[in-house]
C-alpha cells in the first residue's frame, strides 16, 4: 500500500522544511498568521523601526514562521498591497562563538552577498542620482571608513576590486587588501559592523523607494546563554546599537523559546532594559487548542500540495483525530506533526485504509507522546 491509496501525494506531516522553499505553506492558525501579516504590513507602510519578540515553546512554529515569511509570504503581502517589497533575511543566533558579532556578519553576507548589495545600490540609481546616494551614505553612516567602503561598492568596476572587497567584508585585514582598497583598517570593530549594516539598511529602504522595509528574523535567540557572559553582553549591545542606528524601516523579529536558567527567571532579564523597552511588542505562539489543532490538520491534509481533491480528515476518522489530540498532552505543532506522521506510516505498514480510534489504541504503545 502507498500514500496514493490514502488519497495523498505525500506525507503532509513532514517534520523538516520542504525541498522547494517557495512551496512552503501555512495552514491553520489564522489568528497568528493575521498578527504576523499585520506586523509586516505595518513595517512596510510606516517608518519607525520595531523589535518584536516571538515567544513560543519548542515546536510551536517560530522557525517555520521565519521561513514562511522570509521565503514567500512577505513578497505576497507586498504584491497584494501594491507596495515595494521588503528584504527578508533569516539568521540563526551564533552559538558558542568567540566572536558572535563577526559570526553574525558572516551569516548576513552569506545570504546578502556583495553581489546583492551592489545590485541593490545599482537599482537605487533609478530613484536617486549617484551624488544623492553618496550624500545619503555619508549622512547615515557617520563613519568615514564605512562611507569609503560603500563608495567602493558602488564604483566597483573590476573583478580585482570586487574580490578584494569581498575578502575585506569577510574579515581579511591584510596589508595587501587594505591598500588595494585604500582603506585604513578592517571591519573588525563591533561598532563598525553596526555602522556597515545600518548604513545598508537605511540606504536601501530610504524613503521606501526601492524596498519598503528590511525584515530580519533572528532565530533561536534563547541560545544566547551558550555564549559566555562577555559575548552575551557584546551581542545584546550590538543589537541595541544596530536598532538605534536604523531608526527607520527596520523590523527585527527575535524568536525566543522560553527557557529556564540557572539563576535568572528568563531571558527578558538578560536582554537588558534598553532592549526590552524597545521590544514591547510580542507575538505569542501559543499551543493549539483542540479546535485549532483540528482546523490545522484538516487544512493540512487538504492542501493542494498533498491532495488533488479535498477529502475531510481521511484517512483518519474525525473521531480518531479528536481522540489523538486529547491524549498527547500539550499540542505543539511539532508534536502534532510527529504523532500524525507516525500513525500515517503505521497505517501504510499495516495496510490500513481507515485510521479509527481502534487503530490508535492498537498503536499507542509506539507513541512516545501518548499521555492517555
Amino acid at each position: 500500500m502507498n500514500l496514493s491509496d490514502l488519497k495523498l501525494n505525500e506525507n503532509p506531516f513532514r517534520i523538516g522544511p520542504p525541498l522547494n522553499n517557495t512551496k512552503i505553506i501555512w495552514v491553520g492558525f489564522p489568528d497568528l498568521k493575521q498578527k504576523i501579516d499585520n506586523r509586516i504590513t505595518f513595517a512596510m507602510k510606516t517608518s519607525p523601526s520595531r523589535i518584536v519578540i516571538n515567544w513560543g515553546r519548542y515546536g510551536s512554529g517560530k522557525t517555520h514562521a521565519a521561513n514562511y515569511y522570509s521565503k514567500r509570504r512577505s513578497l505576497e503581502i507586498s504584491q497584494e498591497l501594491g507596495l515595494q517589497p521588503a528584504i527578508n533575511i533569516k539568521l540563526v543566533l551564533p552559538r558558542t562563538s568567540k566572536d558572535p558579532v563577526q559570526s553574525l556578519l558572516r551569516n548576513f553576507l552569506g545570504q546578502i552577498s556583495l553581489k546583492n548589495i551592489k545590485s541593490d545600490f545599482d537599482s537605487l540609481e533609478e530613484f536617486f542620482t549617484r551624488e544623492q546616494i553618496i550624500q545619503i551614505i555619508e549622512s547615515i553612516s557617520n563613519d568615514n571608513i564605512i562611507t569609503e567602503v560603500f563608495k567602493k561598492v558602488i564604483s566597483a568596476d573590476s573583478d580585482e576590486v570586487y574580490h578584494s572587497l569581498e575578502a575585506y567584508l569577510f574579515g581579511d585585514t591584510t596589508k595587501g587588501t587594505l591598500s588595494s582598497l585604500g582603506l585604513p583598517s578592517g571591519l573588525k570593530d563591533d561598532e563598525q559592523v553596526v555602522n556597515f549594516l545600518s548604513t545598508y539598511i537605511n540606504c536601501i529602504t530610504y524613503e521606501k523607494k526601492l524596498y519598503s522595509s528590511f525584515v530580519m528574523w533572528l532565530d533561536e535567540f534563547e541560545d544566547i546563554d551558550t555564549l559566555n557572559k562577555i559575548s552575551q553582553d557584546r551581542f545584546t549591545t550590538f543589537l541595541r546599537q544596530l536598532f538605534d542606528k536604523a531608526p527607520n524601516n527596520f523590523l527585527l523579529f527575535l524568536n525566543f523559546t522560553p527557557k529556564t536558567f540557572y539563576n535568572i527567571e528568563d531571558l527578558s532579564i538578560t536582554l537588558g532594559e534598553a532592549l526590552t523597552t524597545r521590544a514591547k511588542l510580542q507575538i505569542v505562539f501559543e499551543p493549539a487548542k483542540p479546535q485549532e489543532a483540528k482546523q490545522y490538520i484538516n487544512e493540512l491534509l487538504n492542501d493542494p500540495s498533498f491532495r488533488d481533491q479535498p477529502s475531510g480528515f481521511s484517512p483518519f476518522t474525525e473521531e480518531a483525530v479528536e481522540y489523538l489530540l486529547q491524549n498527547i498532552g500539550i499540542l505543539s505543532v511539532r508534536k502534532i506533526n510527529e504523532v500524525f506522521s507516525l500513525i500515517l506510516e503505521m497505517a501504510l505498514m499495516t495496510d490500513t485504509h481507515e485510521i479509527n480510534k481502534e487503530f490508535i489504541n492498537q498503536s499507542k504503545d509506539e507513541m512516545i507522546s501518548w499521555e492517555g
Partner: protein
Amino acid sequence: MKSQTNDPVQTSAIIKAFDPFNAYFDEEAQSLFLENVHHGISLTFYLKFPSSVNINDLNGYELINNEEVLNKAIILKVEISEYVTTHSGDGNDKDIESDDLDGHTDEQFVIKKLICALRKIFSSYQFIPYYHITEPIDYGLCPPSNLKYYIIELDEVHLKWLESIIRFLPMDNNCFLNVKTLEIDRYKYFKERPPRNNSLINIVQTNTKARRIGYLKYIITKFEKSPYFPSTFLSKIVERDAAIINNELFEYKNNLSGNDKGVIQLTKSGTSAEPYIRLLQGLNIITVRNKSVILTKQSKVYSYLNSKSKIDPILASKLKFRFDLFEIESDNLFKLNLLDRMFFLRQILIHDSFYFLAIVDIISIINKQFRAHDIISVFQRFIIDEINRTTTKVKNDQLRELRTIKERIESWKSPKVYLEHIIEPRLNWLLDLGFLTSETKGNATYYQMATPCRLFSEILAGISEEWFIKHIHIKKYIENHFFIITNYIFGLQSFKITNIKAINVESRLYEAFSIFKTEAPKRIAASQAIEYVCYTFFLYENIIIEFNQLKQFLIDKKTDKFILEWYNSENDGALYIKS
C-alpha cells in the same frame, strides 16, 4: 619525637589492656584483628614484621600470646572500630518521603557511637583522627552482613595515646546525642539526571571581613529601590549609605548578644563593601548581567517577603518569633528574624556545604566552649580527611575534581593566616543565625553551641547515618525537608500537611504570578512560585509544605488551574496558568 611504636613493651601491653576475646591474623596483609565483644570495640593493627621473623601459619591467638614475635613488629597504624546492627528492611522499604523524626532507638546508630568516640578523643587530646563509616562489602557468597561500622584511624603520631584511648572509649559517659532521621526516596533521587552546574564540592570564597549577615540583608534591601545597579558602582553606593546603620551594629554587639566585627566603612575605592558583595555572589543571591548587578531568581522570594514584612504587621510579628526565652525582641537589622535565618541558612547550606558543614561537625566534636583558634588548628586536616572520605563514595569521573581541590588545600602555605579568612566569617554567620552564642573574655571571643546548632547536628547525624557523606547530599534534604528542619531547629509549632488538596494553594500561586512576572508572557519560573507558596504557608499559617512535595503535586496535575513543565537538567521549570 621518638615513635613509641618501636617500644616493644607497649604493643603487647596494649593488647593485654584491650583483653581481646577474638583474634585473627591476616598473614598476607600482616594485619591483626582483635575483638572485644564485651564492649563491642575492635582493633586492627597494621603491622610490619621484619623478614627475619617467621610468621607463617601463625594464627591470631598464637600471635597475641607470643610476645617475642609480636613485639618485633612495627605498628604502621591502628584502626579502632565499633559496629551496629542495622534494622532489617525488606526490599519494599517505604519510598515516600516521610518526616519521621522518631522511630529508632539510639543504639542502632553507628554515627552516635562515632561522634561519642570522637568527642572523647578530642576532649583528651585535642585532635580529630581520620574516620569513616562503612557497610561491609557484599562478597555475594554468604547472606550479606547487616552491620554498619565506623573506623577511626590512629597513625604513628597518635599511637602513643592508643592505650589510654582504648581504656576510656568503652566508658559510658553519657554521650548526649539524638539522631534525627528524615527519609529520602533513594530511587527517585538516583533516577533524576543531575542539573548542570553540579559541582561536587561547594565552597564560597570568603574574606575575613565578610562577617555580618545583616549587611547582606542590607544590600538586598537596596534592590527594593532599583532592580539593578552598575557593577562598578554598587560597592560605593553601599559604603556611602552604610554609615546609617552603624549604630545598629553597635547596638547588636552591646545589647543583643551579637558582634560588631566586619563593619562597612567609607573607602575611596569601595574595598570595604567588596567582600560582602563577593559573598552575595558566591551565595548566588546576586549576579551580574550586562555589567549590572541584579538579584537572582533564588533571592526574589526572600526580597519580596522581606520588603512586605515592613508594611504587613502580621507577617512582621510572625518573623519576630522569639528563638530563646531570654532574647530581646528587636528591629535591629543585624538581629536576624526568622525569614532571614531561613533564607541565609539555606543559601549557605547549598553553596558552602563543604566548609560550613565541616565547621559544624568540628563544633559538634569539640562539644564545649571554643575559640576560633580551636577550629583553625584542626580544620585543614579535617577537610582533607573529608575529601578522602568523599573519594570513597563518588564515581570515577568525579575523582579528578576531588584530587584538584585536595592538592590545593594541602599546598596552603601559612594556613593559619589563610584559615582566618575561612573560619572567622563562618563562625560569625553561625552567631548571627543563632546557632552559636558568644562571650568575650579579655581579648578572646569564646563561642558555644546554641540549641538550634545542637538540633541541627542531630539532623546532620541522621544524614551521615544514611549517606555517610553529608555535604554532597544536603541539597536533596533541603528540597525535601527544609521547612521541617527549620521548624525543628528553631523550635516552632508548624505542622506538616500530607494532602495538599485540602488547602488552597491555588490562590497563592496566582499571587506568585503577579509578583514574579517578567516580560515572558503568561509564565513564571516554577521555583519562585513553589517557594513562595511554601514560605507563605509556613510563615502565615504554620503549615509545612515542602518544595518537592508541591512540585510533585503540580507535576501530577493534581490542580486543573496550572500547568507545570519541569526540566531536571535546569533544576527548574515554568508554571503556566491554564487558559
